[in-house]
């Protein structure tokens, strides 16, 4: 008789568990949708607003003066590419070097703690303040806006992200791998570069791309440094156009024609960032698996 009641109790508990499981799963799915939905919504909206303004011209022509139809953002695209290239050239090596120092050589030292703290503070600096800082440091002494200052601003902004992710990824490399290298009679610096960094390379690259994607869309720091340009420019000492900057300028303008171009620009910006990231992923993943010599 007692067995019967026990069985019923078990069944009831079992059903409650299944129900709870279902509710939890539903909540998880709902949360995911809530997070992803805005991203998808933005993307869809951009396509809706901007796709119609896309044309071949957009990619090969420079902006026309107000009132004239047509024109594109070709110079802004090229300019962004140059600025991001310059920024990466500055930010990535410095960031990786910092991360390597924090994880491999300075662990526990006061200097390392100071470096880490500085990186975190730098990370929190508003991008406009960064722009003003570079303005004071480079633009004023040089007496002109330049691509160089823009690249520097972007580069500095990349450093904290690259540095911290590099450190995290290196710390995740199991100590056994380091010991294996040392036990072979490999000097420490070489072991760090050739073994530890290489083992963490996938993660480090991800960190670099995170930094890249973040600064690719930065507008504020470029306002006082790169300044923007209505025409082609390739000299580091001249002001240069940048896609986010151009979008900003067009978006706050009173002209409809420019608004349309701004939407198109925003769409192109996001797509280009996604493409750049995917390309890097593809190229590096193939390299790592082959154990490139």
């Amino acid at each position, binding site marked *: 008789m007692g067995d019967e009641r026990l069985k019923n109790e078990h069944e009831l508990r079992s059903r409650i568990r299944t129900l709870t499981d279902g509710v939890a799963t539903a909540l998880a799915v709902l949360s995911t949708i809530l997070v992803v939905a805005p991203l998808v919504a933005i993307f869809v909206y951009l396509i809706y607003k901007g796709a119609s303004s896309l044309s071949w011209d957009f990619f090969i022509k420079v902006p026309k003066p107000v009132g004239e139809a047509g024109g594109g953002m070709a110079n802004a695209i090229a300019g962004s590419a140059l600025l991001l290239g310059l920024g990466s050239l500055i930010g990535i090596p410095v960031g990786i070097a910092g991360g390597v120092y924090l994880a491999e050589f300075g662990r526990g030292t006061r200097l390392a703690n100071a470096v880490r703290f500085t990186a975190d503070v730098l990370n929190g600096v508003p991008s406009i303040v960064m722009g003003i800082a570079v303005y004071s440091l480079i633009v004023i002494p040089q007496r002109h806006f330049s691509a160089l200052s823009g690249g520097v601003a972007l580069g500095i902004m990349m450093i904290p992200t690259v540095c911290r992710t590099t450190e995290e990824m290196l710390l995740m490399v199991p100590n056994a791998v380091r010991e*294996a290298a040392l*036990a*072979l009679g490999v000097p420490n610096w070489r072991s760090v570069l050739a073994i530890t960094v*290489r083992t963490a390379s996938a993660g480090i690259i991800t960190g670099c791309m995170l930094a890249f994607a973040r600064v690719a869309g930065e507008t504020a720091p470029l306002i006082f440094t790169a300044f923007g340009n209505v025409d082609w420019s390739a000299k580091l000492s001249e002001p240069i156009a940048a896609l986010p900057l151009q979008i900003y300028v067009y978006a706050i303008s009173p002209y409809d024609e420019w608004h349309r171009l701004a939407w198109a620009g925003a769409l192109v910006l996001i797509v280009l960032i996604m493409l750049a990231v995917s390309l890097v992923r593809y190229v590096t993943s193939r390299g790592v698996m082959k*154990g490139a010599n």
Partner: protein
Amino acid sequence: MGVGIEVTNLNAWYGANHTLQDINLNIPANHATALIGPSGCGKSTFVRCLNRMHETNPIARVTGSVLIGGLDIYADAKPVEIRRRVGMVFQRPNPFPTMSIYDNVAAGLKLNGFRNRRVLDEIVERSLKNSALWDEVKDDLKKKSGASLSGGQQQRLCIARALAVDPEVLLMDEPASALDPVSTSKIEDLIFQLKSQYTIVIVTHNMQQAARVAEKTGFFLNGRMIEFDSTQKIFTNPSDKRTEDYITGRFG
């Protein structure tokens, strides 16, 4: 060819912890010597003093002398040089995860600047043959990564990697403890064959393993070496009661 190791008054510390106390022993060349003892007795620390890996820990300290083939490894040599002559295989197989099998074996050579492709190929083949892994991987040398092998194969890969730099001494810290019985037997057979070319020191929890592969055995307890004698004597009629209590399992 292997060389002998003479340890005199070796003491080691981790910070304030006096891990090894007054260790004196002579490890014969071209033999396998086993070190047994309960957890925390210092046998792993001892072995790491033989290739100066102990000092990779910033709070580690060593006094006393270790002569390998007559060379004082602390006074007359740099750690990096010693580690090329004294190879080490660890408890958990640790192949370099992002490298192929070939690159793993060649790592010690390549990272020290060796570039000649043909010679590298020969050395890789010879090392893999010496560690009884060649037949199983010869077709996938550059296609498969080191981490894609089974546990027993990974450990033999690590042995091949250590052998590739042509050491005189091979230190093995519980090399088979993470492996199944069949892999363990393979590793033991391997040690038997390697004895003729290298001096082998093997730390093991498994007394039957020490009995199977080593000519001499040392018993460590609480940082001291209690007894060091032929394996046969240690396991049939040890001189010290503490040794006997340990090997008959009466500890505690």
